[in-house]
């Protein structure tokens, strides 16, 4: 009998306002030093959203500056600093921790049926390190903001007069924060699964986080030591990267991309996980090709380690090496396509509910497919020589990072918002917000594909007059995006006070987190749940209850 497993929590359809993780302890210190994964996740979420606002502000400054060739509002040195901070903040402070450390921290142990992550203290340390890393990175802003681009390429990063060291040291610390999260998640998923939660009953979100955690653990130490070497090169001149001392600046690029290409998958694979949760629930249909989606995450994680050289086709890498890197890069399209096809097939003949999370998921499918396919263009060496360092690349990775990772993050935020806060966001505003973000995204970044293929180089302050119309269009899109996110921030914030009380299972999901009350009790599960069915089984055994605004088990079901 495929029914959602019965636990004591199922029978409490309304959230118990008396005791949940938000009200269990009082006072600021009970938050700062909490060991509860949900509270740590909430703190991560708030911090990441704050960083997102900051990074978005820098993005708008950059786009505004690009309205006209030459100076619009800021001078060229400031412009370099702004796009560097935008990139560094969005990558290191927002997208990498966004889904795993914020959403995943709250949801993954719940989905697993565990009481907490394996190492709660390490989890807290991860958050504290994030704060320290963020402070270092932002201190660069206060001293003399770094202007190397988020990639810290040598020899410029070892010679520029700006405050590279605090920013790089910040990224170094953030790396440890990321490793702690990843290590914790791997051990949690190996050792904390309750009886009956077999590997192939794990929700796809957990599979995605597992693959991500593997990459975090295996790749991040390399960027750590690389940034450390770069800092020492800059301060002591040890000569490893400095060609005047016999060193090799391309070695830095190898080290950097050995981490940073897998890091691209640290950013996008969790997004796949979120989409894999949203699509079956809002199609009211079992996921199609569960095992393929699960294993393809691992395949992406594995292949992601073998392709870093495709960032260096024009860095003096041999043609043979380039060809091999190019070929392996093509391979990554296969597991990625498997995912997209399976999601679309899941929707086929489903009963599709166009609520905000689903709108974000559909937007994801659209923009991520464009972003992914343009990646194949760039993996072709002969094409890349032309497109390298142009706006085509900028458009490609924004379609993937912004269009993929951030869209999925927003989808997940709305999907789990009732679970996090116990409140519903206003659905209508949510749909307007999602639409604005989707339109803004495409208007911002699609023109950049055209700009790039016509030869507009990335990171340039000045440009030829014929590029101006497309730049103006792109900037208008950025403003639309800004309005969409402001609207979202506004209604989410208001819903904390005025929102409707959320039911335990407002969307009719079958994964375990919907069996706890909203917000979940402090202990997640009073008794380790016994899992007897897969995470996407039994939608037909749930029915919508108008009174509480959520799904409850059908009377005929075996659930008590």
């Amino acid at each position, binding site marked *: 009998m495929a029914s959602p497993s019965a636990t004591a929590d199922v029978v409490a359809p309304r959230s118990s306002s008396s005791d949940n993780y938000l009200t269990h302890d009082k006072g600021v210190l009970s938050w*700062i030093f909490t060991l509860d994964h949900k509270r740590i996740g909430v703190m991560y979420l708030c911090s990441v959203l704050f960083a997102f606002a900051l990074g978005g502000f820098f993005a708008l400054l950059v786009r505004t500056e690009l309205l006209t060739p030459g100076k619009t509002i800021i001078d060229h040195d400031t412009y370099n600093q702004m796009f560097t901070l935008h990139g560094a903040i969005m990558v290191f402070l927002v997208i990498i921790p966004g889904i795993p450390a914020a959403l995943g921290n709250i949801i993954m142990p719940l989905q697993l049926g565990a009481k907490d992550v394996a190492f709660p203290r390490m989890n807290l340390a991860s958050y504290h390190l994030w704060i320290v890393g963020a402070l270092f990175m932002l201190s660069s802003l206060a001293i003399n903001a770094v202007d190397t681009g988020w990639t810290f390429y040598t020899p410029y990063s070892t010679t520029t007069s700006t405050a590279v060291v605090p920013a790089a040291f910040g990224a170094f610390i953030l790396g440890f924060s990321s490793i702690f999260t990843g290590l914790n998640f791997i051990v949690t998923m190996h050792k904390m699964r309750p009886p009956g939660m077999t590997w192939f009953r794990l929700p796809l979100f957990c599979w995605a986080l597992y693959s991500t955690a593997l990459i975090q653990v295996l790749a991040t*130490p390399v960027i750590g030591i690389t940034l450390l070497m770069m800092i020492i090169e800059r301060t002591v001149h040890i000569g490893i990267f400095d060609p005047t001392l016999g060193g090799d600046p391309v070695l830095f690029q190898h080290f950097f991309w050995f981490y940073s290409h897998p890091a691209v998958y640290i950013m996008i694979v969790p997004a796949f996980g979120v989409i894999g949760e949203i699509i079956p629930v809002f199609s009211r249909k079992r996921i199609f090709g569960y095992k393929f989606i699960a294993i393809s995450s691992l395949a992406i994680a594995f292949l992601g380690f073998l392709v870093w050289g495709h960032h260096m086709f024009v860095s003096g890498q041999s043609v043979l090496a380039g060809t091999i890197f190019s070929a392996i890069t093509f391979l990554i399209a296969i597991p990625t396509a498997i995912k997209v096809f399976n999601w679309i097939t899941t929707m086929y003949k489903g009963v599709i509910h166009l609520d905000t999370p689903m709108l974000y998921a559909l937007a994801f499918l659209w923009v991520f497919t464009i972003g992914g396919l343009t990646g194949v263009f760039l993996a072709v060496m002969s094409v890349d020589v032309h497109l390298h360092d142009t706006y085509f690349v900028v458009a490609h990775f924004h379609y993937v990072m912004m269009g993929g990772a951030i869209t999925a993050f927003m989808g997940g935020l709305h999907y789990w918002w009732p679970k996090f806060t116990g409140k519903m966001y206003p659905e209508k505003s949510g749909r307007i917000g999602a639409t604005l973000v989707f339109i803004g995204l495409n208007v911002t970044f699609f023109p950049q594909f055209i700009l790039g293929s016509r030869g507009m180089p990335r990171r340039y302050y000045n440009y030829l007059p014929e590029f101006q119309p497309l730049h103006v269009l792109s900037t208008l899109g950025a403003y639309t995006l800004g309005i969409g996110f402001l609207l979202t921030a506004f209604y989410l914030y208001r819903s904390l006070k005025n929102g409707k009380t959320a039911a335990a299972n407002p969307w009719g999901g079958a994964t375990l987190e919907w069996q706890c009350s909203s917000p979940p009790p402090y202990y997640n599960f009073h008794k380790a749940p016994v899992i007897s069915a897969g995470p996407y089984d039994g939608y037909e055994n749930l029915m919508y209850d108008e009174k509480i605004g959520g799904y409850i088990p059908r009377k005929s079901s075996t659930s008590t």
Partner: protein
Amino acid sequence: MSESTSESATAPKTGGHGAHGLDHHAGPDDHAGGAHAHGDGPHLAHHFDTYQQQFDAGKLGIWLFLLTEVLFFSGLFCAYTVYRGMHPEVFVYAHYFLNTTMGAINTCVLLISSLTAAWAVRNAQLAQRKLLVLNIIITIACACTFMVVKFFEYEHKFHDGLLPGPAFHPTEQVWELESFKHKHPEAAEYAEKLTKAAEAKDHAKAAPAAVAAGAAVAPETGVFEKPTEEQLEPLLKAGVIGPTAEDPTRPSKPRNAHVFFGIYFFMTGLHGIHVLGGIGVFIWLLLRANKGQFGPKYFGPIDYAALYWHLVDLIWIYLFPLLYLIH
């Protein structure tokens, strides 16, 4: 604060710190060390059901951590390989300055400490409290010995001007070193001769009157005789003469010789920081072991620390030949 949070979390669920609640949870699944609970409940965290589960989680965690450590150091080993591949002479030149004896002593010290760390794990499992404390103390003592030897090594380097980057001003030429003379006496002699000849030439240039004298000196020193393999080879390998030498007119240090010391201090320094970290961990474990907190049911922390210590040892086992024993 965090303690109180976790304790209050424990209370209603697992029966908190009472032996009864623990027995219930540690039940039949618990076979860590084969013994059952005797009231050491405080060491089972609230979110684990059994000691076995807690131990397994910790063990997987420490192995993953060691994996990140290996990858962390791998960047440095990679940089070492690339630089040595491009400039082998720098490494041959610089290794004469390192004190192999001190390096060897440190290797032995670390190996002994690895043995005592492993032994400590066994002591904890068998509840041999006194031996456990003793073995931890020996481990800490060895680690401290390592750092003291390292301190003297560093001090000699500082004293001899063997510093990374622009601070690199060696007070001695490589062929004047005992380690070089001992291995290649003929080459050392030859380098001396070449230096003298070059100095004489300088004199000749500076004071034209002495030209005749200079010309007279040269044949006497024998510089213009065809040098033998033994005389030439070590000097060429160390980049003291030939295309890599800083000064083409006489034996000198190879270009960018300071890079070796950058790598040396970076690698051994980072390793030293790990040793210091290990000392800290073992002192903490010593205090806990002294209170009798470890036993057959709960010995995880000793096990994890020992594993970490083995890795620190292992990294040194690679650093020692790569830095000290170059040929």
